[in-house]
């Protein structure tokens, strides 16, 4: 594991991705210090101000203001907080449910495996965006509700992919050997199977984070995301839509923020997959 970590830290993909994510994370954590304005403060005298570098820009509002005169930069920074919270908790939640079921299913096999497998099949037959929209309608808006909706939709992804990995690992004789040495099933899964599936798990989590950011943006865009007073990138895109001809920057900036974040997580996932997967790491050399 130590070698895998050092190997991934030498991968340029992982390093670039970690740098990008550090920027977003810094915005999210220190939003209160970085943002020039409160994201909710309205300045109705200067609405739809263009960014500072454009003609008619205002130095007070580096990225301009929106239709209600709120600082776009501040809203982007606070929006990063929303995006990061969703990315972290939704992906970890989906990971916990999905991977526990995957390990149980792959390790024990038999009827348990069949039941879990069919559950995943049924679950995956719903279009994910529609399923999350329906869930949001039922649950109501709010940060916690978004996280819950994403977890309930996306755990299947972990379950399906990890199960096949667990199956492969479980076939190794060292799993049987551990049982013969007196390991309980729980010990065998945690100490023998999990270390082998962990690289895939970590990779899936980083990819899931990218998906969570997109889903959160979609839900906020249609108004079924966070509460109206909480800044979110999807919401900003929805607001800017009506004034796209007067101030295209209002629309472009949150889109760029989403692209930047999703690219970072995908790059991280790809880099980790290449450096943690021994087979790919060997072949690449």
């Amino acid at each position: 594991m130590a070698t895998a970590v050092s190997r991934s830290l030498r991968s340029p993909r992982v390093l670039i991705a970690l740098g990008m994510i550090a920027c977003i994370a810094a915005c999210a954590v220190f939003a209160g210090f970085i943002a020039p304005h409160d994201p909710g403060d309205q300045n109705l005298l200067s609405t739809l101000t263009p960014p500072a570098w454009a003609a008619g820009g205002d130095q007070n509002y580096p990225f301009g203001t929106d239709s209600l005169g709120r600082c776009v930069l501040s809203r982007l920074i606070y929006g990063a907080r929303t995006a990061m919270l969703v990315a972290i908790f939704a992906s970890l939640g989906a990971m916990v449910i999905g991977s526990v079921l995957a390990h149980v299913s792959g390790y024990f096999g038999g009827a348990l495996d069949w039941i879990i497998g069919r559950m995943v099949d049924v679950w995956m037959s719903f279009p994910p965006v529609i399923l999350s929209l329906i869930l949001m309608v039922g649950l109501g808006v709010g940060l916690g509700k978004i996280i819950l909706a994403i977890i309930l939709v996306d755990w299947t992804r972990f379950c399906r992919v990890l199960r096949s990995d667990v199956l492969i690992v479980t076939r190794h004789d060292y799993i049987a050997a551990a049982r013969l040495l007196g390991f309980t099933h729980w010990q065998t899964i945690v100490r023998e199977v999990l270390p082998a599936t962990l690289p895939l798990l970590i990779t899936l989590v980083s990819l899931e984070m990218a998906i969570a950011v997109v889903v959160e943006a979609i839900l906020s865009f249609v108004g079924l995301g966070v509460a109206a007073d909480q800044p979110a990138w999807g919401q900003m895109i929805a607001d800017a839509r009506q004034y796209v001809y007067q101030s295209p920057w209002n629309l472009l900036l949150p889109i760029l923020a989403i692209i930047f974040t999703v690219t970072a997580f995908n790059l991280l996932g790809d880099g980790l997959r290449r450096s943690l997967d021994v087979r790919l790491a060997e072949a690449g050399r």
Partner: protein
Amino acid sequence: MCDSPKRGARTVLALQAKNLTVSARIDGAVVPAIRGLSFDLAPGKILGLVGESGAGKSMVGRAIAQLLPAGFAVTAGALLFEGEDLAQMAPARRRFLLGRAIAFIPQAPMTALNPVRTIGAQFDEHLARLGEDSRNDRRERAIAMLTAARLPNACALLGRYPHQLSGGMCQRVLIALAFSSNPRLVIADEPTTALDVTMHPQILRLIADMQRQHGTAVIFITHDLRLAAQLCDQVTVMYAGRAVESGPARAVLSSPAHPYTRCLQLANPSMRAERRALYVMPDQMPSLRQLQNMSGCHFAPRCPLVTEECRRIEPPTVAISAGRMVACIRAAATSGIASAQRPVAAPDISKRPVLQVEALAKHYAIGRGLFATAHTATAVRNASFSIAENEFVALVGESGSGKSTIAKLLVGLEQPSGGRILLNGEDLTDAAARRRALAAASIQMVFQDPQSALNPRRRVASIVTQAMEAGSRHASWDERLARTRELLGEVGVAADLAARLPGQLSGGQRQRINIARALCHIPKILIADEIVSGLDVSIQAQLLNLLARLRAELGFAMLFISHDLSVVRHLCSRVLVMYRGEIVEQGPIDAVFDDPQHPHTRALLSSVPPDAPETAWSSLDPAVPTE
């Protein structure tokens, strides 16, 4: 059919290697994988290339086909097929020769045939390439060849797919394919290794018969000295890329001149002689990487006759008698190498049974589905035996006979369908008793493949003491390290390997770690599933001696599953013979081997080539009819 070049009566050799050198590029340096190999193969003769894995013997076959692995190339010398250099000739000419004048019999027959095409289609394609124009002629010729390869019902076989045939049948098909072009040279690379032992004599005899009929020259690559003595006219023994000894097969093996050949012979357990500790060569063959920094004779670090001079200069290859060459400066002393005179101490076997198995059975349900009626397949039927304290009992039989199923039933990885397993009188088919046995680690298993049996993410110390973290046991790391030192000492692995990962160990070391783990809490009985198959003879000898010593020191019984009867005879005192899920014969080893009752036991015994090269192996005798 082929445009055979004008052959000068005696002068043209089928294959001649002249100072052949194949080199690999490793980390920028050029390391020879085969160095200065020379041999002459006359038409119609069989040349055996003998050596352990890594000796470079398969590289010769690959050099002939010019299918060397990436980074390898012929860097010096010549490989002449009927006077034409294979390494220098135009690719079109080589393609023309390969498959026509030169044919190959591969090691793994099941993967050498295309799984999605019928045998007939593959035969047809090959014959069409050879220039047979008429479809009917091709079909007739295919049937004739398959019949000649002693495949019954050749007509029906043409419509079959490879997966419908057994490994032995696939190999026969491949032999028929190889000889269908009337080749002048056939390269057989360990053609029996992937097959069941009972198939070996039939396949070898088929190759020998076909070779005689077609007058083909054969290069026979093998790791088995005894086999080479029986089958080949000439042998070349290879070590670390160099031919250390060559000459007429029987002469080389009855009086080896190179210490390596002699040591290899002594490391092989015998089927006849009195049991004694096997001769053990220390260490293992150097890898290509290690060869880079070696000077002098490459065998010197393992040689019992080593002198200062051996380490300094590389011995030249000299002729010692007509047709015999040896690369050793101390060849005169070779005959003096002998294994320790001390016979293996007859172990103190009490009469008290530690394990009793009564009418054990295992059925599997197959074909269960909505519309299919369920069938049961019987893996083990009515198996009864017992093992006493300190007793080593062998379980032999061909693959699929249920040996591994018995192992899994005994250790509890599978649940029996019937019968009882008593460990010290406690019935292990009872869940509570099984849990107690698990907790006491009183029945342990050593798995066949250490690659799969050792967690690649755990370090050696953590693997061998894994039992100390099981269940509710919580040994401190210091305790575990102390136990690791003891265990590594027991199995003869240097203590400083404790921090290594399994991937950083050699095959022999891995198997020792595998054994050490099972011995952490000394078990009452050890189940060993083919633990020396797939290892080289010298490593196998090390492990067999190790097991005998460990029993004397620690005291445990063992069920030793194997297909190699000479190994079994060396190590065990009793044998169980399994055939199609049933134990068909059991008893003291010498009694069973001297007077086998069941036909399958006889088939197993006839698959072992005799120890003495002078003794004719009845299984290869053309006068004896095959069943």
